[in-house]
């Protein structure tokens, strides 16, 4: 089953063992493969002892990332933070605030959130952006699909201009829009 979620909603989500104990909360998402998918998480304490912990979770150790909790088998799967972060590329998907440009030179807006498609893996399939006037969305926040591979730097994210045709206003239907967009890029589809 595939579930779409915003990365910012995953932050502070409780980490719960199958025995029903909340052992931590998600502090940050660690991205792998040039920010294309989630490699793991850094953790923070919960409640009175909230604060960054020196531990993390590799994606392989996550039993399920649900809408209300991140489930793990038991505390044993928690690793040192170095192990989790070192396995991923240096960039941690710090894309919030980056500009999104199309390859025909139009600025679409700035990134406010990362959209994840969670199955057995958690793929980055799109971004939520504060739209520029070029998108004609009255500056609203919209969702923009990503191709399978993308060109990104600390400065900007470059997208094929066709991405503007697959903009969504909310998560409902966005998964289908991403599929259509990627099919189009692959040379398939009717148009």
């Amino acid at each position: 089953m595939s579930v779409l979620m915003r990365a910012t909603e995953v932050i502070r989500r409780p980490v719960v063992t199958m025995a029903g104990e909340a052992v931590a909360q998600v502090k940050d998402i660690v991205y792998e493969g040039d920010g294309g998918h989630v490699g793991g998480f850094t953790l923070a304490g919960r409640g009175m002892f909230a604060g960054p912990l020196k531990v993390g979770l590799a994606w392989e150790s996550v039993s399920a990332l649900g809408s209300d909790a991140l489930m793990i088998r038991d505390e044993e799967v928690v690793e040192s933070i170095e192990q989790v972060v070192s396995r991923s590329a240096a960039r941690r998907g710090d894309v919030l605030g980056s500009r999104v440009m199309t390859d025909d030179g139009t600025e679409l807006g700035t990134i406010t959130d990362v959209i994840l498609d969670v199955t057995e893996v958690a793929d980055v399939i799109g971004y939520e952006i504060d739209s520029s006037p070029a998108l004609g969305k009255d500056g609203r926040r919209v969702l923009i699909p990503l191709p399978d591979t993308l060109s990104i730097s600390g400065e900007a994210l470059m997208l094929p201009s066709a991405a503007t045709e697959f903009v969504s206003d909310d998560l409902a239907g966005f998964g289908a829009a991403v599929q259509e967009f990627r099919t189009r890029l692959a040379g398939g589809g009717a148009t």
Partner: protein
Amino acid sequence: MRFSEAKNHRVMSVGDATTVGRVRRFGVDPATASIAGLKLRKTPGEGDTLAWSDLEAFGRDAVTIGSADRITRASGHLERLLAKDHAVLGKRVLSVAGVDLGAVQDVDFDMASGAVLTVITDRHEIPGTSIVGLGTYALVVDPARP
């Protein structure tokens, strides 16, 4: 019978036909999905714990035990299951997929065996056989488990 009906049930000693306490709380063992013991109030001595295996019967109107000396002080595994932070009523229910299924409003159990038959939340009725774990944070269930 439901926890809501069984709470405050009179506990009676068969030996001398006296009331020796009232049911205060249920300790559910997630490994067996059944009641492992009862926490009592208004007991004559310092003990306030009854293991399910020490019951004569869990009846419609009262719990019966052989004599008051069956009531002990909680220790070990049972003490943890009977602790307030493990109480099932009001507990958040999480699926193994990490989805909140509501808070436990009541539990239906088998009076003969103590087995949890159904966990009732504000949104779902979950078979006791789905129980995977019970901790201070949540009751974890696997709805795919028969």
